């Protein structure tokens, strides 16, 4: 009996049922592109499809990686997106100052909803699974093709069922849950598969934490990371979602490739050591001096993450040897930070607060690391050279840990903060 992925793909392919391994051509609801993956896609489009009108209602263009333009080349890259949008009258273009990191904007702006099939030319497009959508990352050439035809080929994935029960300890967030699971399954443990999440822990998690979990499904190699939608999701979507949607759930007797069970009450506040997200370890066991603390990205740059870090930083100071860099994931998050007084807490603590961008998450700008430097970061990847010099080191962690470490100058479990 079908899983969520199988049901969504079957419906969008106009088939009664599909099986894992089958290749289908399915109609997508939306195609998202950012400034980096956009440029090659626009080139492919203009070269090959210029006689066809793009499906403008399906296209969403969000510059975020190298905007505000970091140099002349990125300025030209960003302009190619702006030009493409205006040439083809694409309304869903989110200019600097009215957007932010693509995945956050997609969710905030109501494009994401249960049962939808969404592709994005960015690997963390899997984030939208937190709202019950089947969403996955694609490349630029296929994004161009999907803009023209509205269709793409998919290999129907096997599904892994991941059940997380129990009440998490203090300061354990969605980030710690996903780091522990990736630590267990490994960075290719879910290759080509969908992770479907269940259990009392997942049900009680706020949407922000669920998005963190779905966001990092790709870090286990997964194609999608889907959480069955519930009231938390429906409430969030009220007054926000564009169009109608129909939630999709797996059948009771759905067939899973594997079932994994975890007890979140046993999980510690966790960091992933360089150079793979699977190198999960309790934060309290890591004794490392840091140069930078980075709070932001599509993984943990939401208002809930800002609140968590601000709760730790309030009335405290960032260590003299540390730069703390705070990058809200969207203009909306930034606006709320101002409203709630979080901006003031960060600035008084001695942190640098930037506007929304991908920034240093991918080693772009706004906090790139020098040779040998160490950063504790709320982002999702700690690959060699990901945030700068190839000899720099990135430790992945939740916002509490990043804020606590910023204060002490060493990687710190917030439970150990005096």
């Amino acid at each position, binding site marked *: 009996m079908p899983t969520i992925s199988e049901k969504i793909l079957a419906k969008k392919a106009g088939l009664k049922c599909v099986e894992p391994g089958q290749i289908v051509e399915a109609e997508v609801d939306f195609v998202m592109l950012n400034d980096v993956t956009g*440029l090659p896609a626009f080139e492919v489009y203009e070269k090959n499809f210029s006689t*066809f009108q793009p499906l403008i209602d399906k296209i969403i263009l969000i510059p975020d990686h190298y905007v505000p333009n970091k140099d002349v080349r990125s300025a030209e890259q960003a302009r190619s997106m702006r030009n493409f949008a205006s040439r083809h009258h694409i309304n869903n273009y989110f200019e600097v100052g009215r957007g932010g990191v693509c995945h956050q904007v997609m969710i905030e702006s109501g494009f994401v909803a249960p049962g939808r099939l969404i592709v994005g030319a960015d690997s963390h497009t899997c984030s939208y699974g937190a709202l019950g959508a089947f969403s996955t990352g694609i*490349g630029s*050439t296929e994004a161009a093709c999907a803009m023209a035809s509205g269709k793409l080929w998919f290999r129907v994935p096997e599904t892994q069922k991941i059940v997380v029960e129990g009440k998490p300890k203090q300061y354990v967030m969605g980030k710690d849950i996903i780091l522990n699971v990736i630590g267990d399954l490994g960075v*290719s443990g879910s290759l080509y598969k969908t992770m479907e999440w269940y259990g009392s822990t997942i049900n009680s998690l706020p949407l922000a934490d669920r998005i963190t979990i779905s966001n990092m499904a790709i870090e286990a190699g997964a194609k999608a990371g889907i959480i069955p939608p519930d009231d938390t999701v429906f409430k969030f979507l009220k007054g926000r979602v564009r169009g109608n949607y129909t939630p999709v759930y797996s059948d009771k007797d759905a067939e899973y490739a594997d079932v994994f069970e975890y007890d979140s009450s046993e999980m510690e506040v966790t960091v992933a050591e360089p150079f793979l997200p699977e190198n999960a370890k309790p934060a309290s066991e890591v004794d490392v001096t840091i140069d930078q603390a980075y709070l932001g990205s599509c993984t943990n740059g939401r208002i809930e993450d800002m609140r968590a870090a601000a709760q730790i930083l309030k009335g405290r100071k960032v260590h003299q040897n540390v730069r703390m860099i705070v990058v809200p994931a969207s203009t909306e998050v930034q606006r709320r930070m101002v409203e709630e007084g979080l901006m003031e807490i960060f600035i008084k603590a001695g942190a640098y607060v930037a506007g929304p961008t991908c920034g240093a998450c*991918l080693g772009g700008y706004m906090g790139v690391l020098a040779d040998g430097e160490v950063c504790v970061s709320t982002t999702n990847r700690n690959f060699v050279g990901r945030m700068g010099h190839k000899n720099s080191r990135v430790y992945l962690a939740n916002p509490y840990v990043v804020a606590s470490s910023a204060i002490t100058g060493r990687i710190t479990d917030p439970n150990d903060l005096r």
Partner: protein
Amino acid sequence: MKLTGRVWKFGDNVDTDQIIPAVYLTTGDPRELGRHAFEFARPDFVKKIKRGDIIVAGKNFGSGSSREHAPRALMGAGVSCVIAKSFARIFFRNSVNIGLPLIEASIECEEGDVLVVDLSKGTIKNKRTGEVIGFQNFPEFLMQLMKKGLVNYTKEHLKRRK
């Protein structure tokens, strides 16, 4: 189709940040990207690569970012195909769509060995050892796509619709 080339060996989990560092993501041009392939991870790669060379890697090749710049950079640098135990899925899609041949196989070889890959027969021969191994080709739809490219496939589809 037969491909002959020297082996460049890599381990598990070669990510797209290694294949093409993010600082070069301001162009989509394969040749220009190819000049920076593995620039930080293996600086000798672009200096010594010869057109037709073959990458042989472990598990999860091409993990990480969705950047199509990665297979474009490899093609631009002259890589004729990549043989790995497994591929990360977006890298896999991108390569199929733009026509960089991928082979899922586990083979014994050393850096610099010369391999002869027969894509239609599904065999890889190591010229040094004489060993020949077979591999399973991808489903017909993907093999066609790899040959034709997704752009041409989509064009045909659109013309039919018109």
